[in-house]
């Protein structure tokens, strides 16, 4: 995979430097894709490439160069302008040629490259005296360190503010290392209230420490990647790779580090549920407000001793277990004046009370529904975490079989079986998110049947791999395992195909209230 990438990039550098993105992809299409075996069928139709940080810097530089062949301005001015337009080349071109260029430069906080001298004079404020002194005595006081230094040691931007090189280096280093670069990855001139931005070449020239340089490169590409719909950082911590796609879509991509994720949302690959619903689900799970809502709806404090009391039945006559106080659940008053007939709370409007009771019931049944799906979702997630243990025990089994005259190739079916098991669990996990938001109709009943079949076949495979395998004769195992995982694969395919078909034909209705 690496040699392919190198070849691709060398080729790109030497011959197609100015080629646009589409050409890159045609070429990628000819080469075999770097894929993980797990999701091969999904990946084949969706072309993408995995880039290193260095490659993404190069990619950004190429993008800037491309604009610069048309717009003849300094490269860093282009980066700042492209940043300003969230890396939309066309929009930049349109505004550049149709609109007021001076206004554009001003809005992007960059000095117009066409108006250097007059602007510099006008913008110079505190630096004026220093500049004048420079021409007379050749020695200037740096406004940061207050040292009198030869004018040759002073430097600055088009705005005319000059500081000594050492101070510039310190200033830029502080900004880069202390997250002082803001969202778009820019640093402004060190002078008070001067909003002219320091260009990349100047930063790279003035910063000497390679660690600081690298961080700067990462920060400037970060905005490039985040603004570009066709790029996404691998979500694994400290991975640093970027996935580049041909068109934005919710599809699985496999990073060089081995992590497989949804390109559109960055979550683990989550077929059959769509990004939007998964996002809602994750938020719901994170909020954890469900449990506290239930507590709010179903428990109250005893008005006398303040211990927490849970309502366990329909009767509103409550007796505190701790202090034996009799009170009304609805009005929290003493029970005595309420009389003996069922629900006769005279301090509460009958309808109001009914409404309150109904909403309590509703919130309880909504919670139970959520817990039903959540338990099954969590259960598969938990099981997936045990996969490494199963892989280890299966590896032992594979070694044992090899000692019984089976070849390495011949025993690979066992690893394949665990791969399939994990895929099925992941799919099942997300089917419960899909189902949670699904409104019941004829198709949803078929979906639930498919889900049940996949559950059963997956559990059979799991049980066999974990337990029964030890009791069988080695010769029988292969046939049994293959039968089981092939059946799982087919059930998984049936389920996914049905959901995908439903998406295409718009057969799914969703519950907005969920």
């Amino acid at each position, binding site marked *: 995979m690496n040699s392919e990438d190198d070849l691709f990039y060398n080729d790109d550098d030497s011959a197609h430097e100015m080629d646009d993105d589409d050409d890159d992809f045609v070429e990628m299409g000819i080469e075999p894709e770097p894929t993980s075996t797990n999701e091969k069928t999904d990946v084949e139709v969706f072309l993408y490439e995995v880039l290193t940080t260095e490659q993404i810097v190069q990619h950004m530089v190429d993008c800037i160069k491309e604009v610069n062949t048309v717009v003849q301005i300094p490269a860093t001015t282009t980066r700042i302008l492209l940043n300003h337009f969230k890396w939309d080349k066309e929009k930049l071109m349109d505004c550049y040629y149709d609109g007021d260029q001076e206004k554009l430069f001003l809005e992007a906080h960059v000095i117009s490259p066409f108006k250097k001298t007059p602007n510099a004079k006008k913008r110079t404020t505190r630096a004026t005296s220093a500049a004048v002194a420079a021409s007379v005595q050749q020695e200037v006081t740096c406004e940061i360190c*207050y*040292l009198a230094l030869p004018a040759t040691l002073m430097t600055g931007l088009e705005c005319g503010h000059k500081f000594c090189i*050492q101070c510039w280096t*310190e200033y830029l280093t*502080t900004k880069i290392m*202390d997250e002082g670069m803001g969202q778009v990855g820019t640093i402004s001139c*060190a*002078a*008070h*209230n001067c909003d002219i931005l320091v260009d990349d070449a100047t930063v790279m020239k003035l910063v000497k420490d390679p660690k600081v340089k690298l961080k700067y490169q990462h920060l400037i590409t970060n905005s490039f990647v985040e603004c570009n719909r066709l790029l996404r950082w691998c979500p694994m911590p400290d991975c640093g790779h970027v996935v580049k796609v041909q068109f934005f879509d919710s599809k699985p991509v496999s990073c060089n580090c081995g992590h497989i994720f949804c390109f559109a949302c960055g979550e683990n690959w989550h077929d059959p549920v769509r990004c939007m619903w998964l996002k809602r689900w994750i938020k719901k799970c994170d909020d954890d407000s469900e449990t506290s809502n239930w507590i709010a709806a179903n428990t109250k404090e005893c008005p006398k001793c303040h211990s927490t009391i849970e309502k366990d039945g329909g009767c509103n006559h409550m007796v505190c277990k701790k202090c034996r106080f009799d009170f009304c659940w609805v009005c929290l008053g003493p029970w005595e004046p309420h009389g003996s007939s069922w629900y006769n709370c005279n301090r509460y409007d009958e309808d109001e009370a009914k409404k309150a009771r109904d909403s309590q019931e509703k919130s309880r049944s909504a919670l139970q529904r959520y817990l039903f799906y959540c338990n099954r979702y969590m259960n598969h997630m938990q099981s997936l975490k045990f996969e490494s243990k199963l892989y280890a025990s299966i590896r032992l089994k594979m070694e044992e079989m090899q000692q019984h005259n089976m070849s390495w190739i011949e025993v690979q079916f066992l690893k394949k079986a665990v791969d399939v098991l994990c895929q099925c669990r992941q799919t099942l996990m997300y089917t419960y998110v899909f189902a949670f938001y699904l409104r019941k109709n004829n198709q949803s009943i078929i979906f639930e049947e498919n889900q049940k079949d996949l559950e059963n076949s997956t559990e059979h495979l799991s049980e066999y791999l974990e337990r029964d395998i030890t009791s069988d004769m080695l010769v029988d195992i292969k046939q049994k395992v293959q039968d089981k995982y092939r059946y799982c694969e087919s059930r998984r395919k049936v389920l996914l195909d049905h959901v995908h078909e439903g998406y295409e034909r718009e057969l799914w209705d969703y519950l907005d209230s969920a």
Partner: protein
Amino acid sequence: MANIATARIKREFKEVVKSEEVAKCNIKLELKNDSFTELRGEIAGPPDTPYEGGNFILDIQIPATYPFNPPVVKFVTKIWHPNISSVTGAVCLDILKDQWWVTSVFDYICLSFQALLAAPEPDDPQDAVVANQYKESKDEFKNTARHWTYAYAGRPTASAEYDSKVEQLKNMGFDEHKARVALSTKHWIVEQAMEHILS
């Protein structure tokens, strides 16, 4: 301490001392040690404010990365002001945070502090009790701030009413500062202040 920081402080200190603008605004600056890591600032309360006639001491800590990072400044003199903690003297000022510029100098900092004394920003408070009082009763705030200026910052004249109330609690055996804080918090009602101290 870094070379740049030391060189800069030395020069800056020299310029502040001889600056006319600084003398005009009644700002003083002195070194607290030879290593230039700590300064003592003194600003006069601006005219037509409850702080008029008072002198406020500032504690200025210089980080090793100065001037690329801002100094840390707090009030040593106790002061009643929505943006300054009446307990710790901590100040929340943007020019010492995200609006810090490497070319900002001490006279600019001191002038900004004077400006803050002249124009509190109760919507971005550092001391919630003071800010509430400022919003609810401007007069009570002014009188209280004036009283604190008298008690801690050397203002000559005083409010006889507030003085006697502090004296009253003091005579009952309460600590003078605690009594003043309680009275300031509880609208200068002696009974409530007492309850506040005892709770």
